[in-house]
């Protein structure tokens, strides 16, 4: 078996204020091509874990290796090189609302494009081509020049996915990408992620709230509780007892189709 793509070793994150332990000694490995789903209650550390992987948040201790390279030690240009091959999709899309769809998508290329021209808003021709293709993939070509805030939630998230596509990502981090969307739209967004996973070979780590979606899309599930890994296994292994362990005694499973 090949070496794992991502190795997280004993990662702990303590927020200075109020000494909150967001992550407690989290260790996990992710192989190339997996669709790993993170589940757990709000505040269980899913977002923090995802953000430690691309260092939007500094872990307090521990190591994270991506393709054998220590992400936690990377600085400056090296860190940017690591980040540019990790796509990220956010719960609230994180688009620049006043900018056009095209400009938002092109921004996904900032890690690759020569930086001086980008400062006056210029991108190489092939990047603009690529932006067209990305928007075609998510079916939003005709909205190219529309302002991002004119789009519906689902469309905005598709722009977010097109932006991530621009990075030709080897790994995609999705932080509750469908929590702000209605169930039908949620499914279509996750299908785009699945498509990137299957057709482009991008590994996906996706935090989700609904277990039904986790079961449907995940090839493996990791559950966090109070910042620690409490379950790791296949989707079908989560039975009622396990569910209560992760979400607490009072929890009831809600179906989302």
């Amino acid at each position, binding site marked *: 078996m090949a070496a794992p793509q991502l190795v997280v070793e004993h990662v702990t994150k303590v927020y200075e204020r109020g000494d*909150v*332990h967001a992550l407690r000694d989290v260790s996990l490995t992710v192989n190339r091509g997996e669709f790993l789903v993170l589940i757990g209650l709000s505040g269980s550390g899913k977002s923090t874990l995802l953000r430690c992987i*691309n260092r*939007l948040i500094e872990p307090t201790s521990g190591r994270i290796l991506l393709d054998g390279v220590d992400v936690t030690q990377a600085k400056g240009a090296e860190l*940017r*090189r*690591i*980040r*540019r091959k*990790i*796509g*990220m999709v*956010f719960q*609230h*899309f*994180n*688009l*620049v*609302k*006043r*900018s056009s769809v095209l*400009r938002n998508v092109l*921004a*996904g*290329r*900032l*890690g*690759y494009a020569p*930086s001086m021209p*980008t*400062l006056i808003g210029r991108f190489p021709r092939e990047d603009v081509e690529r932006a067209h293709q990305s928007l075609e993939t998510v079916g939003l070509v005709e909205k190219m020049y529309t302002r991002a805030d004119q789009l519906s939630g689902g469309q905005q998230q598709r722009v*977010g996915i097109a*932006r991530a596509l*621009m*990075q030709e990502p080897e790994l995609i*981090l999705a932080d509750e990408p469908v929590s702000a969307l209605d169930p039908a739209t949620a499914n279509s967004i996750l299908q785009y992620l699945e498509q990137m996973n299957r057709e482009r070979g991008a590994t996906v780590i996706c935090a989700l709230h609904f277990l039904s979606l986790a079961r449907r899309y995940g090839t493996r599930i990791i559950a966090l509780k*109070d910042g620690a890994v409490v379950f790791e296994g296949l989707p079908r292994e989560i039975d009622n007892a396990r569910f209560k362990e992760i979400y607490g005694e009072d929890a009831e499973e809600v179906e989302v189709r």
Partner: protein
Amino acid sequence: MSKNPAGRRFRKTVRWGAALAKRGAARSAIFLVDATFLAYLFVMTSYVVSRMVSGVGAYLPIRGEYVVLGAIVAAIAWGFLGTSVGEKVILFLSGASLRKAAPDLAGSVTQRRRWYKTVWGLSVVLAAIVTLAAATLITQVDFSRLVDSLADTWKMIRRLVRPDAEILGEVVMLTIVTVFMALMATLLAIPVAVVLSFLAARNLARGPVGRTAYVIVRAAASIVRSIEPMIWAIVFVIWVRMGPFAGTLALFVCSIADLTKLYSEQLESIDPGPAEAITAVGGRRLQVLLYSIVPQIINPYLSFTLYRWDINVRMGTVIGMVGGGGIGMLLMQYVRVLAWEQVGMCLLAIILVVWSIDTLSARLRARLS
């Protein structure tokens, strides 16, 4: 969360200690408010009485030390005489947090009685009456004087509404000077304020250096803003002599402080999401700035700048009166020689220019938002 029982006990002790400290602080604050209130009541009452009786406005019939001493004693005594004004004020200001820390303090206030049956209620009404009486005496309010000189004033008004068209050329020239003073001051202030606003935004102030810069810039802006443009104009008239440059400098200084505050508040309210996204795709800091922060602030910044230019035109007319150049300076010259037809002309120009720039800027700002 903590599994350490000793730690929990410690925290509990700290919380209890904090409650005690809060109680103490609240008691002292109540005492201070009461003492100040009583001293104020005594001084104002004695002033009003002495004015009424002897016509001489003596604030203190007895030595100041005795007033202070008396107020302290009375404030202590008030602690035993039902609810005091201080208790009302402090509980109102501190709200729920103190009510939790010192329920007995809050309890004495919550019992409801008609205001004229409570000591504090009567004291507040007494203080209000005395304040009104004292304020009338101090400001020498005398409405009869409005009527006395009505005839002269009417003559002045009649001359004012017949503006002298002879000086039209001069007035137009100097109005242009005022508008350009405002424009120049605004333009010069923009780059300075943009840079300072990034230092004065709480959410962007990182690390000890950033925090220090934040505090310094914020404090400096507050100090500058608390001094009126008129006073800045006097300073610069002395510094660079009378004329439009002095006025421009005064407006420039005030614009920097004002725009820094407005800009930085805008920066504090931006959505951090896009910046996070641009960082995540591997963008440099400058790219993060240009691709996520600038698009969010550009329109509000333009809008604030237009607004400030509009204010500067209005301020510019006033600043001229103390030697800051432009139409205000001309106005003041005619006022000094009581040339009311000419004053009327200047006022007409000021009204027209201020009104049109106000309208223009409001239209443009509406389009920007």
